[in-house]
């Protein structure tokens, strides 16, 4: 049942590194993470890899397998042809720490920049009443396991380090969408901020985030594009702009 697997695993740190050829046994039904663990136990005791639940629920074991951003615990060995070499590297959009582990602090920094949920003033715990249809859109985004594969694959920052300053990334666009669609959220300037501070306009909707999402969240169609449309409502639609001016003037009168 066991088969020999030829791996190329990137080993190194901030200064240098290279792909190393490793031959290891793999059993039927194993995933790439199982094989990495075998390498770790039998050949390279100090091979650095991040993982937690090994069930596709925590989003820790993000890496690139044959060049594709994936969760190692969700990538079956049998999905590769018998004789194919499997290349495993760390995420390539973030600074590397060691071997397959990268510094993903960028994402936590961005999380800090998104204004938090703001419930209606005076509302007491237990009082909220929300309909299922009204929470479903936001619930889709809350499925996110924060594996950061979408952040890693997004060319806006993957290919342009300098954009990291002004771009929050797909994971946080779904966070913004989640809050903007939340039936109880009272913060009304999320759209404007999304465009002006979080770099929504940088996204050119090439959908790689959606392609890599292990939770199958439709990031582009259900979060980014709806947010772009909401931004247009607020900022770029002359008719709506005129409407709001008139309403304002009536207010003065």
């Amino acid at each position, binding site marked *: 049942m066991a088969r020999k697997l030829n791996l190329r695993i990137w080993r190194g*740190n901030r200064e240098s590194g290279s792909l190393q050829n490793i031959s290891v046994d793999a*059993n*039927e*039904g*194993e*995933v790439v*993470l*199982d094989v990495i663990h075998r390498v*770790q*136990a039998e050949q390279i*005791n*100090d*091979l*650095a*890899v*991040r*993982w*937690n*639940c*090994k*069930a*596709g*629920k*925590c*989003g*820790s074991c993000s890496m690139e397998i044959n060049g594709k951003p994936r969760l190692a*615990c*969700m990538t*079956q060995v*049998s999905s590769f042809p018998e004789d194919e070499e499997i290349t495993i590297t760390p995420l390539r959009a973030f600074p590397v*720490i*060691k*071997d397959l*582990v990268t510094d*993903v602090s960028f994402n*936590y920094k961005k999380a*800090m920049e998104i*204004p*938090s*949920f703001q*419930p209606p003033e005076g*509302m007491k*715990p*237990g009082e*909220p*009443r*929300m*309909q*299922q249809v009204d*929470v479903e859109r*936001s*619930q889709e985004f*809350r*499925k*996110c*396991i*924060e594996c950061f594969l979408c952040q890693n694959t997004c060319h806006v920052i993957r290919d342009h380090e300098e954009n990291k300053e002004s771009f929050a990334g797909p994971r946080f666009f779904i966070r913004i969408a989640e*809050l903007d669609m*939340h039936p109880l*959220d009272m913060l009304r300037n999320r759209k404007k901020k999304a465009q002006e501070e979080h770099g929504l306009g940088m996204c050119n909707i090439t959908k790689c985030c959606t392609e890599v999402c292990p939770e199958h969240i439709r990031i582009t169609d259900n979060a980014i594009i709806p947010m772009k449309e909401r931004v247009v409502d607020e900022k770029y639609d002359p008719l709506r702009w005129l409407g709001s001016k008139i309403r304002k003037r009536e207010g003065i009168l």
Partner: protein
Amino acid sequence: MTNNSAALERHKYDVLVIGAGGAGLRAAVEAREAGLRVAIICKSLFGKAHTVMAEGGAAASMGNVNEKDNWMVHFRDTMRGGKFLNHYRMAELHAKEAPDRIWELEMWGALFDRTKEGKISQRNFGGHEYPRLAHVGDRTGLELIRTMQQRIVALQQKDKQEHGDAESFIKVFAELTITEILKENGKVAGAYGYWRENGNEVLFEAPAVVLATGGVGKTFKITSNSWEGTGDGHALALKAGGNLVDMEFLQFHPTGMVWPPSVRGILVTESVRGEGGILTNTLGERFMFKYIPDVFKDKYADNEAEADRWYLDQDNNRRPPELLPRDEVARAINSEVKAGRGTEHGGVFLDVSKRLSAEVIKKRLPSMWHQFYELAGVDITKEAMEVGPTCHYVMGGIEVDPDTAAAVNVPGLFAAGECAGGMHGSNRLGGNSLTDLLVFGRRAGMGAVQYLKGTSATPVSEASISKAVQKIAAPFTRTGGENPYLLHQELQEITHNLVGIIRTKKELDEAILKIADIRMRIQNVTVSGSREFNPGFHLSFDLDNMLLIAESTAKSAVIREESRGGHTRDDFPNMSPVWRQKNNISSFNGTEVVVKQQTLPELPKDLFGLFDPHELEKYMTQEEMAKGGSN
């Protein structure tokens, strides 16, 4: 490689929370809201805690679906589930406060599934009399951890506005391992640890430490727990002079996947057997017929023909023996494997594909089919699963004061969540763990706040620091050559085979000897490579913790001569009312774990009165019944 203390990274906080799962984060929020400065330590990245794995829901008697539900009913269910070994006060606090903890999550942005009236929906779950579990599909744990994580961020944003620095009051230290709780003059003074990223050491000086480190599953070979479940908090508390209570109680599920490794430990729900899954050994025998206890003879079929007919005609046939209670199924699987009729991976076959068509399986067991197909390429509509007992949850844990979550014997130490003991008695009800985290996480935070009103910080002495430094340096300086991975695997074999789901004195005695042997060999664990993100190095500390857990569990298990909840003794198959009155208390004397008995607090009269006396008779002695609860 040793750090001299001049260059040592030092932090001073009011409260140090070790563990960033539901309980730890809830404790941190509580302490921060009382104005304290809090450090949160996570062993992995922020938001990856094992809490995300909880699927079913969070039990709280909000009465949204059935108005008859209230805290008293929930309390009764919890005590029943724990077979009356629970600390009544913990079960009482939990039942009373759980609804508020859920409602508060909603104010922090959580989005639970809704009822038609727009309230939080609640679902039925085993052992709960009414629909009680607040849920979000099957990812309630993720919702809880994310909400707490975002609550921390919200507080940090507020601090940034008010104090200019987001981390001025709460700072999260991600990927940091604590190796020791430091005490001075008998009180907690801080903790010592190292960054996993580079091995650099860190000293935390804090007069209050909250342990919220979760479970111990990785002590066992087959477990649903993630790598973090290495019992760190249990072990840290023991080493700091605290006690563990009833470590023999572990929740095993009789049918977890044992192979392939990609799904090892993942639970196969009972409904697979309910839908017609049959258990066979490697000889192809449907072995459950051999294991029907006499008391069940009239309810369970003793031949295949009748068992098969039951699925079509339940009135005129007896049930198939695969549907016997959990412990009976576990015992049968255990016996088959030990008799050499199990698979090479220590399991038996569970096959649902013979009886049902692929379409029916996909329709009735969609998530089971999908999960195994996606994670392991196992198609349960075509092939059998390899299953065996899997370790899921530890009921035993750090002995604490119910109201303040303060660890007994260690001033300044607090514990909440899975690493604390007492709340669940001998068996935990599904759904109670998520609310346990919130209720006692908050109480631990409050406990720390209260404690700090009457005490002040003690500086950590140089002597304590240098001891801690030596401990961390040890794995690199030793030369014994033991591989930590292989030693861990050996320990897991011992616990799995000898301290597993079905226990006997003979095997437990053997386990205790073998664990002592590993304790000797752990002195020789040697680590290769550098300190930079080195998993072998990390494992060498986890291993030490897991050994203490295994020892405490085995020793408690051999002493408790009865079967109750998550502790099944083949040589003592019944519950004993005398043992119900006793907790097994583990402590550590520096070289080994010592287990003593302690009397369980009696149910007070008002809580005693919530039960039907006929029910209590099954658990309690005649004297207890005559007394009718304490005053």
